[in-house]
């Protein structure tokens, strides 16, 4: 089973941490630190498997990780999981090549494999070319996506389309709930997004002529 899923950046700051076994908060932070320590020492051209640290359970456990530009995706698994399978889960090979396009984070993902594949590819689909900033600001979304893939430490679903469909349905549900209470908010954002200079200067409807004053943009 999968014991933990961790995402952290090149400096060890956690971007997502999900534990499938009860650990105290202190232990959790220690595990994150220790894992970062182990994984950051690895070179670029080595295999994606590491023996686990002492905290997360000793000789039976492995760390399977992938490094993308500024992020490490680490799955801590025990010996009952297939190593190559988990790699596939982390990222699925996309039909179009997956590029992380925010400035400064350009890189190409080559030879992606395993469970890691499915995860990153799904993130890519949900966020439209996901990058680290997306993960930072939408941690809860990432949790939701992960919950559709891995449940209770076991792989639940690997069909990307199903996962994405579910996520979309749930998001729609949330939006519809915001409903009436959200109306003022929507009005505000509509006004903010209005581009005043683009409005025609003269509105001529029949014999009514309205002169629109020269207004600066609201933004």
């Amino acid at each position, binding site marked *: 089973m999968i014991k933990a899923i961790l995402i952290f950046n090149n400096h060890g700051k956690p971007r997502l941490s999900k534990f499938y076994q*009860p650990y105290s908060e202190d232990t959790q932070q220690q595990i994150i630190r220790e894992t970062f320590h182990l994984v950051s020492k690895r070179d670029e051209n*080595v295999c994606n498997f590491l023996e686990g640290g002492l905290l997360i359970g000793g000789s039976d456990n492995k760390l399977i990780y992938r490094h993308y530009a500024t992020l490490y995706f680490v799955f801590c698994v025990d010996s009952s999981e297939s190593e190559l399978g988990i790699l596939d889960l982390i990222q699925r090979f996309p039909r179009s090549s997956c590029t992380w396009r925010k400035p400064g984070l350009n890189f190409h993902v080559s*030879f992606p494999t395993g469970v890691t594949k499915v995860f990153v590819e799904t993130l890519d689909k949900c966020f439209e070319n996901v990058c680290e900033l997306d993960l930072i600001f939408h941690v*809860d979304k990432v949790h939701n996506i992960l919950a559709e893939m891995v449940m209770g430490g076991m792989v639940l679903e690997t069909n990307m*389309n199903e996962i994405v469909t*579910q996520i979309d349905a749930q998001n729609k549900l949330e939006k519809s709930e915001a409903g009436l209470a*959200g109306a003022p908010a929507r009005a*505000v954002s509509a006004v903010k997004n209005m581009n005043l200079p683009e409005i025609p200067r003269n509105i001529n409807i029949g014999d009514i002529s309205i002169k629109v004053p020269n207004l600066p943009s609201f933004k």
Partner: protein
Amino acid sequence: MEISGGEEGAEFGGPRGERMLVPSLKVQDLIEEIRGAKTQAQEREVIQKECAHIRASFRDGDPLHRHRQLAKLLYVHMLGYPAHFGQMECLKLIASPRFTDKRVGYLGAMLLLDERQDAHLLITNSIKNDLSQGTQAVQGLALCTLSTMGSAEMCRDLATEVEKLLLQPSPYVRKKAVLTAVHMIRKVPELSTVFLPPCAQLLHERHHGILLGTITLIMELCERSPAALKHFRKVVPQLVQILRTLLTTGYSTEHSISGVSDPFLQVQILRLLRILGRNHEESSETMNDLLAQVATNTDTSRNAGNAVLFETVLTILDIRSAAGLRVLAVNILGRFLLNSDKNIRYVALTSLLRLVQSDHSAVQRHRPTVVECLQEPDTSLSRRALELSLALVNSSNVRAMTQELQGFLQSCPTDLRADCASGILLAAERYAPTKRWHIDTILRVLTTAGAHVRDDAVANLTQLIGGAQELHAYSVRRLYCALAEDISQQPLVQVAAWCIGEYGDLLLEGSCEEIEPLQVEEEEVLALLERVLQSHMSLPATRGYALTALMKLSTRLRGDNNRIRQVVSIYGSCLDVELQQRAVEYDTLFRKYDHMRAAILEKMPLVERGGPQVDEEAKESKEARLLEAAPVPTEPQASKLLDLLDLLDGPSEDAQHPRPLDPSPGGALVHLLDLPCAPPPAAPIPNLKVFEREGLQLSLSFVRPPETPALLLITVTATNTSGGDVTHFICQAAVPKSFQLQLQAPSGDTVPAQGGLPMTQLLRILNPNKAPLRLKLRLTYTHFGQSVQEIFEVNNLPVETWQ
């Protein structure tokens, strides 16, 4: 992508910095602020302020924005800050009817609550309601939370709900319910009975998610109960069919990865087949064809194919498969070893390690490739290669393999050194072709990685050298050269010091055919040992070795001993107590007991490997304590045994003189004979009358306690039917070398006349090798005014005493 939770109307116009009325930050804004903090202290400040706000908001009980507050709290929790005050809010959010609230609430429950806190039980009711009445999405949330943090109590309470959901029409809910069932069984094994029946039906599903979950469930059930395992063997044909369909169906874009249809499901099925086919001929046969098909037809150009192929190989090797198939499987692994992808090589090495016990010869064929992997810069790979290489060493390849491993030892990373060194030493001990090679190997390991060897390496090597008489000259020369080069590797220095001390005379003789002639002067040797003594790198134990070696050389060298005497007297005032004691004793030896010096510092007898009698350190300490012993120390019974054995050699001069272990040819007692291996019978052993003279009778009774089969208790009973008392009665016993004898104190030394109270004495004999028992008794007593001494061997010992 829109920001969830809606934008907050109340924030309109309130810039981030102001904290006027009740402005609460959106999650994203909080994150921005935290990222804006330049130092850790600043970050902590921001978070503390925000947490205070959150706490206030929780107290005020604002239902509209509770989910947002909790979301912020969860973010802060991920960074490592305390968030326990949000636990109750999770409950409230879960109980709310809105999906938004529930989503965040359940996420909070998974992150903040766990089975160690009592609060977690409070959500059981909400989960129950959601499971039975919620929409699909809500049911999904509830199941997800239950499977992540559900404790045993919760699982017991909610088992029926989950069971009902297994038969629901929606595949989304069903697949989640199946995996939740797996979790429940892990927590409460008794629930297996609840979840076993639906499995058969679930296997007929076509939805891959449900199938995946069902197979996981079946695996969990089979691993927990052999009855379930037997039950599920029936579905092997069905599984084979499903797998076949997966393989032959055309390309399905939904589930396929790189052209392989749903590799995850394939891998799970193969794993279940492995569990079901293990040790079961019939099931294994059903799978054979399919496995062969997968093994030969899977496309290995992509990782997904490789994952499936690996599982297939592991399955083939674990079940009772045909021999040809096994060979195919090992060859596939061998091919993977040559793959350029490091991940594949890693998995191949791991799999081969699992096989090395059962299919040793097949794995041996790939030995050269494995040895090449030792050179990998990647530590994960080289560690696996090291383990596998050590497992592959056998008597025919030990020389070549040791060569490779020694090369590896020189360049390997520090964390692998200890394992490598001890592995080489172990392999050398098991398969050494000659003693000289063995000594050379250990020497090389000590030179390369002396700091990383185990503590007993020194003792082993000294024992080894001590036992190989023909190699004494060779060893001492080599060790001397090694020591002259480098005195920092402690184990090496210790062994070298001991060796030089023992065989210093051979060192100075100058000729040895196995090594180039070496001219060594006495002064050089002494200088070297002095250097070791004085070096700050030497441990106290090492210094002890060096000092004793110097002392021994005083008898081996031909020159005068002034230099040695000087050193010894200097160390008489050393701060280290052990060294000081030794130095003082040796000094006394020089001054007062010079006549005994040669005898005490004599060469050690040949050591037998594995013998319990001789221990290097024990010998050293015995020699050191000699001088404090009183002239006639109280000897334990065992030394009377020495006297007994030495009877034929004449009286020994010094009671504690270490006696030669190889007894003289006229030795009374015999060495080990063949070992019988019949189990000891439980029947009582008949008594034996062994001696009779003038009314004094001696009889033996035997007891073998059932819990210690190697132990034999003999009670010697002496009875006197004559008219005169028997006084000063002493009975001694001797047994062959392989036995251990202990005589306990007799009940008395007088056997009164006329059938008075018999005297008894207990003998304990330990016979670990189950060798035939031979017993010799010696009696001395006074009877009718005459002193009598009798020595005889006990004949007709019953077989049960030693078998």
